């Protein structure tokens, strides 16, 4: 892009492949839900108040519903434009890990009372981090990329 470059020798193509708005909403929804589950797990850990464990269960279930749709989009996205960049594979991988561990977390939260702990809290931390990472990478496709 430097002005000193030979303009004839270089062709700049700016590719903007933003994820579909519906896909974006599904992806974005997972983050506050998993984060909410983590916070309410933390509250249960601190207070032993059972209602927080109930909240966590439903928040995780909601995140899994949205996450499953986002995951479908990501899978189709990978096959639709195969061979394009590692970022899309990384995104799919993060999303898949988030969903699988999120599902295991849902099962952990289906245990009764304190049997949820400590596995539920630990998984909620990991899954929330994966949700942050997946959202970060997923939305970073909104940035324009230079492809030579």
């Amino acid at each position, binding site marked *: 892009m430097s002005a000193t470059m030979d303009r004839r020798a270089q062709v700049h193509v700016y590719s903007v492949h933003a994820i579909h708005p519906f896909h974006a909403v599904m992806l974005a929804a997972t983050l506050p839900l998993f984060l909410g589950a983590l916070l309410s797990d933390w509250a249960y850990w601190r207070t032993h108040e059972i*209602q927080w464990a109930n909240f966590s*269960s439903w928040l995780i279930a909601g995140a899994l519903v949205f996450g499953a749709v986002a995951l479908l989009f990501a899978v189709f996205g990978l096959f639709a434009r195969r061979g394009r960049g590692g970022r899309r*594979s990384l995104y799919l*991988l993060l999303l898949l890990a988030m969903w699988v561990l999120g599902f295991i977390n849902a*099962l952990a*939260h*289906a245990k009764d009372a304190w*049997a949820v702990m400590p596995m539920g809290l630990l998984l909620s931390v990991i899954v929330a981090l994966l949700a942050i990472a997946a959202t970060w990478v997923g939305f970073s496709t909104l940035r324009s990329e230079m492809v030579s």
Partner: protein
Amino acid sequence: MRRATLSTIAAVALALMLGACTEKGGEQQTYGPDPQLPEPNRGLLPRMVIAKPAPWGDKAPTVPQGYTVTAIATDLGIPRQSLVLPNGDILVAEGRGGADAPKLKPKAVIAGVIKAKGTTQVDSGHRVTLLRDADGDGQYELKTVFADDLNAPYGLAYHDGKLYVANQDSLVRFDYRDGQTKAEGPPHKLTDLPSAINHHWTKSMAISPDGRFLYVGIGSNSNITERGMTAEVDRAVVWQIDAESGMHKPYATGLRNPTALAIQPDTDVLWAVVNERDEIGPDLVPDYLTHVQEGGFYGWPYAYWGPNADTRVMPSDPEKVKATIKPDYALGSHVAALGVAFSAPSMGGQFADGVFVGEHGSWNRNPPVGYRVVFVPFRDGKPAGDPIDFVTGFREDDGTTYGRPVGVTVDPRGALIICDDLANIVWRVTPAR
């Protein structure tokens, strides 16, 4: 690299799921005063094996040689417990309660749908039906509604012209004359019974031989406090209720779900069968038969089978754990004992001295257990020896289930009355004469 990571995740997930499914119980459970108590364990999924209901058709339960079994009433509205009146008439309490218990987690919604497949789909009777065999031929030709508009009646007791019925929310009294086939009017309410949520809704009942006190078993409001401790006020207890005034006091506590009570003849001691907690393994925690000590604490929720702490309860209470009484007799984990009755010499032979126990059958165990009526032999007023199958054939090995026994009652003239709440039948087992 990517492929390797993906398959690793898949493999770990699969292993975790399978781990849940290999949680298998022994073919033979341990019974009696000192059952084996393995370490608690639970995979990611609770093990569920649900009965597959099928009609009895021409079949009938299996009884020991020298005994006969007859269906004395059919098409009932979920029969649970029965009572034999002094003139030989039989009363049957019909109905299902617990409908108000809210589902607090996705798990409860899913488990509710699955478990409902193993139970009857007919409407609750919410009534007490009277059965009469006027000519003594063993056929109960009269079947009539004794009292209607009750609320999931379960426990029944009679003393000297007074009939007591324990609804899921109240204890009521009817006046009764010998030979009466219909209550004269609505009952007198003696007292309310704890009914908020009513996760375990059945109110079992027994009456002291002098008719002064009623004992009512009130189950816990959760498996293991997953509805919070505030839901457990006045739960998992046996109340002693003054039959005249309706005043009550806790008689014993920490009994998770005391589903049937009986007074031992001769000693007048109160006995109970109690359903213990689920989801810590196929061979934990044994349901039990025990005499009930006044003022005794039997562990729920803090501990089980003596001072074995349940780590799912938080905050914990080490003092309560230490104070936990060991019950008398393990019936086997998850058998779901719902009926108990002391036998009488008229039951004959090896079944003369002991108790009959109706086992509704498990959902949280593989292979399933229960689905039968057992006889626990007694000697010198105490259980002595392993339970003996008395009535079986409710469930086939492939899961096909024709019936599920609940309440058992001994007719002193020589018969065992069994309520079957899957087939909606009352069975009568008699020694051949």
